[in-house]
């Protein structure tokens, strides 16, 4: 470094990026992971973790209690254990609460803070943005629709209460069907409601109202006023638990009007709720003007 000829000046200005760029689909995954972490409170302060953690505890509690009893009381009759089919009924409130928590947290802050504008001015169009948000909410919902059932299956198999080796694949498929259907439905409905407001609290209240007001109204009308059983198709949480019973071949509601409906009608009702939710959300985002 002694000669002047070795002296060099380096530019400190903008460095052009000449490296590789991932495909636009990468942005969907990035946003989905970022949103999932956000809704679960990961990487955020403690207060953001409380509600998701509490809801997860509520959702897993029946499974933990059931598995705990099975482990502690060796000669416990199988009939005393919680069944796969009735699990969705037991955690119905937790599902609704979680949906009311997750979807508004996924969608509302972006419109309120202006992040939506940054996303849409960059590598995401509206469809890709919604795909990322939908994937994040679906993944979060799967954690409580699928997780406890898989946990129960694994624990019961280990404890000797589970299905035989030959029956396990079939049961696993049923668990995936129930967990997947429920998660998809709750995600679509809650995202639809959240797409209509920029305020998380209003969206959360809206999700709860949309899920439970029809249940109360329809159930009252069917059970008390003798209204046709088809009215139960308006009760989304009721349809989820009803379909769960039927997929696991567990008929719970003997003498109830909904027995008149075939499983295909129940499944179609749930599919209609899911499709309507997804469509409403998609149409809403077609019309939203993003701000910067």
């Amino acid at each position, binding site marked *: 470094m002694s000669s002047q000829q070795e002296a060099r000046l380096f530019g400190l*200005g*903008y*460095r*052009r*990026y000449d*490296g*590789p*760029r*991932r*495909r*636009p689909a*990468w*942005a969907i995954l*990035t*946003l989905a992971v*970022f949103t999932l972490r956000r809704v679960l409170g990961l990487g*955020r302060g403690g207060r953001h973790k409380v509600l998701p953690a509490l809801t997860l505890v509520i959702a897993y509690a029946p499974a933990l209690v059931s598995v705990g009893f099975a482990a502690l009381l060796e000669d416990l009759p199988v009939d005393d254990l919680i069944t796969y089919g009735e699990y969705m009924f037991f955690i119905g409130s937790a599902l609704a609460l979680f949906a009311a928590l997750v979807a508004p947290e996924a969608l509302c*802050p972006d419109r309120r*803070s*202006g*992040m939506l*504008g*940054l*996303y*849409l*001015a*960059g*590598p*995401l*169009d509206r469809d*890709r943005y919604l795909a990322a948000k939908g994937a994040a909410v679906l993944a979060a919902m799967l954690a409580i629709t699928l997780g406890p059932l898989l946990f129960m299956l694994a624990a019961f198999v280990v404890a000797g209460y589970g299905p035989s080796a030959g029956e396990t694949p079939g049961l696993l498929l049923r668990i995936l069907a129930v967990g997947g259907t429920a998660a998809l439905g709750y995600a679509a409905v809650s995202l639809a409601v959240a797409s209509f407001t920029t305020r998380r609290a209003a969206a959360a209240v809206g999700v709860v109202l949309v899920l439970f007001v029809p249940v109360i109204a329809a159930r009252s009308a069917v059970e008390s006023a003798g209204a046709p059983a088809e009215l139960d198709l308006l009760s989304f949480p009721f349809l989820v638990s009803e379909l769960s019973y039927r997929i696991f071949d567990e008929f719970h509601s003997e003498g109830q009007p909904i027995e008149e409906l075939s499983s295909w009608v129940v499944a179609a009702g749930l599919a209609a709720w899911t499709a309507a939710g997804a469509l409403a959300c998609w149409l809403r985002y077609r019309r939203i*003007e*993003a*701000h*910067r």
Partner: protein
Amino acid sequence: MSTEPRVVAEGVSKWFGSLVAVSDVSFDVGPGVTALLGPNGAGKSTMLRMLCGLARPSRGTVRVLGRDPRADVDVARAIGLVPQQESVFEPLTAHGFVRLAATLHGLADPGAAAAAALELVGLDPADTRRLPAYSKGMRQRVKVAQGLVHDPAVVVLDEPLTGLDPRQRAAMIALFQGFGAEGRCVLVSSHVLDEVERLGSRILVMSQGRLAAAGDFRELRALMDDRPLRVRVRTDRPRELAGALLEAGTVVGARLDGDQVLELDTNDARELARALAPAARDRDARLLEVLPLDADLEGVFRYLVQR
């Protein structure tokens, strides 16, 4: 460097119900810095939103790099948007926020790219404070960093100098000028006219939703022949000089301001430039200063939006 238009608007209108925000606007913007000016409510923000693909024109077409920014994600990735809003986007650290932008844009090493972008705007990538704890000027620089992190070909800056101190403003202006000199298309919306003037001379002026002018503001001033150009002349014999110029018809008005200052209104600046020195010589007057008063950007802007 190609001078091909990078941003083209053709007959663009945008209305919200009965409110017409942008009306039949056409322009094209090539490489370099171009300023988009206009008073509040002129339609600038709506125009920028359409250029970035955030809003769909009610009529007309917008093309960025020859493609529709709303329909084509690839072209949207070539746009770097620095938004106007002052609210904090996400409660992340500056590095986390810019890295998120880099990751979304698919850069191979988003962490390093984010650090480089933050250093470019004079911020510490290792700062662990979250954005809400930042000052307005720091947040502004974070926004600039996220808009530039992916090396965009078209940079859209909405009021990028807001909240910055004079030193930071100078640094930002130099940065944007550098981008323009590299051949990028830099479109700046700003209300700070003297700083826009330092950014470059090409302007688009919007007023009441319409395009009022486009081009070099000095050339635009020369086109305003229905409005006299005002020139201030300092001389030791102002009365004699004013008399001579009025008599010759070179100026259409003259006003004395004190003992030495003369303000002249002329419809033909070139003729005045030719005639001034001979007239002073003939009247034995010394010319101490000649200064056009409203040939700056502010004068042009005021005229365009008030006519």
